[in-house]
């Protein structure tokens, strides 16, 4: 080993060790747990533990609530990712406009929700979304829309929570997009304008291609984030009404930490891991194919 290689290893080893310790080892252990029937009886007496192979995975496939949780999570991601990214991009474009004054102030105000505590803001949003006294229904009343039981009806609970989540998270990607937008070359913009390109054409053919990689990153992170949504439904609806906001992570939490079925919960965690991995691979493939974006 040359001196250069030794130095390289000295730099890489600590990181590798940490990755091994906090990522590879727990994942392996979780996979180990997921092929056992670890339950509260194993907590009482280790001899009650049995190897069940893929038993937990087949049990999951026949559990209606798991499927419901999967479809709820999919709905959260399908509606939430475009909503959150569109909101971030829209806010970033507004902030990027030359006519806007006090930019740092707006940036701070719009970013503020991101750094607030979920529990505190969820309580406020629960009041906003209240069917009888909520500000949102009050505002809808002005335009003649009958009060909506936002969090109490199984059909409106996911959109209601998504309103809150979007408000809470859009600030982060907004800042990322602002940075990307400031890197869009002005000469290109001006050239396009001189060539007679309109607002939309400039956005589509100049702005979008230059922030493409950032957009892809935001999409990948948002998908991973929305697939792991837990705190918001936990605080706002406890997974209800009629389990319409029970997500995969919520299901896992209930099984694992509430009922101590760690075998089954680990299987859920593993399924979620594979799901996020697969989706990320697909996203990067798509991202690579449409490099012109």
């Amino acid at each position, binding site marked *: 080993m040359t001196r250069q290689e030794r130095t390289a290893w000295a730099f890489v080893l600590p990181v590798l060790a940490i990755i091994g310790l906090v990522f590879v080892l727990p994942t392996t252990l979780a996979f180990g747990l997921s092929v056992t029937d670890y339950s509260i009886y194993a907590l009482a007496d280790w001899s009650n533990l049995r190897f069940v192979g893929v038993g937990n995975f087949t049990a999951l496939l026949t559990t209606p609530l798991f499927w419901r949780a999967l479809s709820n999570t999919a709905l959260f991601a399908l509606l939430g990712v475009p909503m959150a990214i569109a909101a971030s991009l829209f806010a970033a474009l507004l902030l990027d406009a030359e006519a806007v004054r006090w930019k740092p102030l707006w940036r701070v105000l719009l970013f503020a929700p991101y750094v607030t505590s979920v529990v505190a803001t969820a309580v406020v949003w*629960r009041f906003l979304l209240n069917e009888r006294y909520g500000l949102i229904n009050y505002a809808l009343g002005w335009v003649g829309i009958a009060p909506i039981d936002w969090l109490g009806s199984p059909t409106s609970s996911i959109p209601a929570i998504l309103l809150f989540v979007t408000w809470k998270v859009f600030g982060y990607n907004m800042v990322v997009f602002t940075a990307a937008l400031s890197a869009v070359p002005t000469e290109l913009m001006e050239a396009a304008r001189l060539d007679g390109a309109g607002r939309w054409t400039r956005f589509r053919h100049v702005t979008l291609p230059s922030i493409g990689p950032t957009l892809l990153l935001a999409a990948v992170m948002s998908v991973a984030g929305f697939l792991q949504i837990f705190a918001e439904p936990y605080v706002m609806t406890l997974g209800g*009404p009629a*389990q319409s906001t029970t997500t995969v992570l919520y299901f896992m939490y209930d099984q694992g930490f509430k009922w101590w079925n760690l075998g089954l919960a680990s299987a859920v965690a593993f399924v979620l891991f594979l799901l996020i991995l697969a989706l990320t691979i697909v996203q990067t493939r798509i991202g690579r194919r449409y490099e012109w974006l």
Partner: protein
Amino acid sequence: MESATARWTATRRALIAGLPALAATAGCSPRRDPDALTFWAISYEGDYAPHLMPAFTTATGIAVEVQTLPASAAHEKLLTAQAGGALPDVMMLYNGWVGTFAMIGALRQVPDASLVADQFPGVLQTAQYFGRDYAVPWSVAPQAQFYRTDLVERAGYASPPTDWAEWRRMAAAIKRRAPNDYVILAYLNWWDLLVTLAGLTQARPLKDRDTRGNFASPEFREALGFYKSLFDDGYAPVALSTDIQDPVAAFAQGYFAIYPSSPPIMLDFRRRTAELPPERWGVTRMPGPNGPGRVSSVSASVAVTTSSRRPDDAWALVRHLTSAASELRFQELIETMPARASAWSAPQMRQPRLAPFAEQVREPALWPAIAEWEQIQTEVQLIAERVVRGLMTLDQGVATMDREVDRILAKRRQLVEAGRIA
């Protein structure tokens, strides 16, 4: 100049390196008194338990540190603490949990029969596992109907009837007078009311030595049918606990006339007399199909953990907490009802508003003392919610309950059949 920068970098690096250590010390704050006994209690009991401690510390010289757990997260917190070996010396448990924690080996057996003397028989049973005592009952909290006297009177009744047929007539009269308000509050994500109704119809929710669900039995169907009818007829709002942010305020405003709850709610009422004057509410026993009957209660007991290194001191604390004097003091402070039978002859227990509880503590409903019961109640309530919302019929509902409960009990069934547990 250069050296100054270098020194700054060095200190900054030291600072960053020190951060995790700082976080670690902040995270597990050092116990104020390493010699103190630790005691975990839930909800109001935890908030007010320090008031009981000076007498104990004076008498024995043992200091006690009390921590409060929130009721909604207590079960999982205690389980996690047992798995992590972090349980306190003494802890409070709701009844129904004693079996679970005795089974996982977290509880010491009660060493002295005098600790569990002078108890109501049905209540003591909830603190047992395999017929042995693992905890000492601390309070009993049977559900009762708290009602708005004015609203019930306007419907032509002195107090809410205690049999279903008459109760429904009263409900219809209340609803007629105020079609936009409701008669009774029943959170769709809390199992309390459904379990109470099942006790009143004398349903036996499990069968075959508690290894299979028995929810399709006529008694449980009767209870679920009545429960569903409360929502179908518009007597109960279709709401979760998260939908009604302040139930006491809603009760005070007349959003619903009857609030089924347990005695500690009287502490909330007492704190908010400006909103809800004492003459505006009363309390009576829960309605059953043919009059009042057996009702389950979210009673509390205290137990000593196996991880306690000072069991004698811990049992002394349990003896102090569960003495008739302490229980009566708690009744004054937070309106819990004493578990010691003799405490009920004290003058303070003769207040008219406590009479329904004095009757009800003698008629407790008993539920299976198995590790899965907490989960079963939760799962059954989730299905009941779907039945109420019309997502499945009552027949589908009870069949689903049996199927889901059989699935939850699969491991228990396997162990019972192998003769490893009873």
